[in-house]
């Protein structure tokens, strides 16, 4: 290393080095995605567990589709498709937030913030990891469910909505969990939030049709936005293309993403203000 090469690279004169937040975010996203491929043991369970759950439920409750009032479905497996994907995305995005918490615990986060990185790029990188995992999950599930005879009635359009919803939901839930990661700085705290988010899915029409619910549970499920999303997806899977259903299914996770990201950015600023 000589002075000449350094001068040729334009180093040492900081005005010649322009910072590019987009390039920083891209580089950190690349890190998160590479991390997915290098530590698949972290997220493989997020694919396997929901699939097992779907298989068991279908075996145990398969005849539920014959119950009067149950939405017309070819099989219980078809009925569960949207819920299974939602469950998987939930697992996956909590994983992404755990990675962020782990960065804080291990000090990698300090390494980043001691550099001139755009603060938001740190969050973008992590959410990009969650988004890519969401897309992978959607594609894997479409393939696996199709192999077991499930069919998306809305055709190719419907099949395209699934990964879009998965990606948006991954970003949204990932952002909410990241806010928690940034506030607590602890992997355990992020993982302890799991039941809370899980309950919000169970308290929806994800695993049971609203048509057969009663009383307060029916009310909760009706006002739970997860229900709106899942029912939208379910119509695409069970019935066929309906633009309104597709729009609802996309709008719900889109709104969660926007709100979640705002919350996470606020938490990031708070963390930086208290430590930096």
């Amino acid at each position, binding site marked *: *290393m000589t002075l000449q*090469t*350094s001068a040729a*690279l*334009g*180093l*040492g004169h*900081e005005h010649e*080095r*322009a*910072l*590019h937040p987009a*390039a*920083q975010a*891209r*580089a*950190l996203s*690349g*890190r998160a995605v*590479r*991390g997915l491929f*290098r*530590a698949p043991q972290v997220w493989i369970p997020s694919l396997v567990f929901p699939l097992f759950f779907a298989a068991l439920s279908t075996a145990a409750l398969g005849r539920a589709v014959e119950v009067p009032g149950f939405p017309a479905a070819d099989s219980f497996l078809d009925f569960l498709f949207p819920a299974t994907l939602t469950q998987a995305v939930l697992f996956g995005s909590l994983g992404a937030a755990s990675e962020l918490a782990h*960065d804080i615990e*291990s*000090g*990698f986060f*300090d*390494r*980043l*913030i*001691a*550099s*001139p*990185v755009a603060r938001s790029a740190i969050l973008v990188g992590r959410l990009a990891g969650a988004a890519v995992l969401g897309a992978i999950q959607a594609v894997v599930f479409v393939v696996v469910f199709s192999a077991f005879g499930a069919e998306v009635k809305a055709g190719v359009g419907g099949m395209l909505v699934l990964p879009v919803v998965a990606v948006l939901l991954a970003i949204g839930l990932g952002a909410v969990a990241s806010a928690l990661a940034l506030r607590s700085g602890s992997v355990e705290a992020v993982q302890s939030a799991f039941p809370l988010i899980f309950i919000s899915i169970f308290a929806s029409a994800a695993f049971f049709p609203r048509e057969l619910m009663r009383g307060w549970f029916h009310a909760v499920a009706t006002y739970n936005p997860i229900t709106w999303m899942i029912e939208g997806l379910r119509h695409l899977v069970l019935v066929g293309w309906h633009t309104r259903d597709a729009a609802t299914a996309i709008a719900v996770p889109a709104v969660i993403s926007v709100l979640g990201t705002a919350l996470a950015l606020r938490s990031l600023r708070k963390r930086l203000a208290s*430590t*930096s």
Partner: protein
Amino acid sequence: MGALPVEAEGLVRRFGDLVAVDGVDLVVQAGEVFGFLGPNGAGKSTTVRMLVTLLTPSDGVARVAGFDVRTQAAQVRRAIGVALQDAAIDPLMTGNELLRLQATLHGLARTAGRQRGAELLERVGLTAAGDRRVGTYSGGMRRRLDLALSLVHEPEVLFLDEPTTGLDPMSRVNLWEEVRSLNTERGTTVFLTTQYLEEADQLAGRIAIIDGGRIVREGEPAALKAAVGSPTLRVQVMPEHTELARAALAAFGEERPTRPGVLAVGLEGGAGQMAAVVRALDEVRADVESMELHQPTLDDVFADATGRRLEGAEPEAPAEGAA
């Protein structure tokens, strides 16, 4: 660069009721290796975290590379290189990838970043390991990579927080060589924290000793040691010559406590008196078995300043000038 690399005035950091750093003043000149020495919990890391903008000072002012750490944190971050002891490296990434990431974060273009990364890997002797994941690196390799990462943007000031803590002696010496050559070849200013006396002695041109959040001594290691007192000369002679030798040595300074069978004297005239001591012992025909000159160590300086020995301090080693 006209501004001082580091200047701090009345720097204070409180955590609740605990005052971790209690009014630290520092000046580091361009091109020097400054050693910040102190036991665990003395406030070293807290001070460094304030200087590298990871922690806001509760009180006082600090400027790094001419920028205020509080109001111009972004500029500070662009000017400094940081290798923190407790900031882990992502074990899933390779050395090359980490260097490229660091280059991007500092605004280097892709090709420049790649070229710079290759240069630095070579410099720290990790070229062959560049495509291996950091998880497979040894402790010494990680520290060298950490050093390379902190140099990606050719910082004006390099902060090394306990760079060799936990390393084996061989790796420690290797890292010292790196830091030394960086400083002499490139003129990089180095701010080094350490709990190892020997490290401060080996690397730093000037040191500050911090204890209980305050700086208790500051200056060149040699001057600090000289200020503590004269070197100790230890002489072992044939047992029957002990009294002869004691009388001869009395002319050079006060007798000091030592092991039985060994004579020790504070050499008031310093190492320059050695030849005269040898002649005097020869004149009284005392048969000398061994002779060692011990310079005061930084531990003696620390003990003088605080009344305690530095935690984990290495046993006193024979200093330069031993006969």
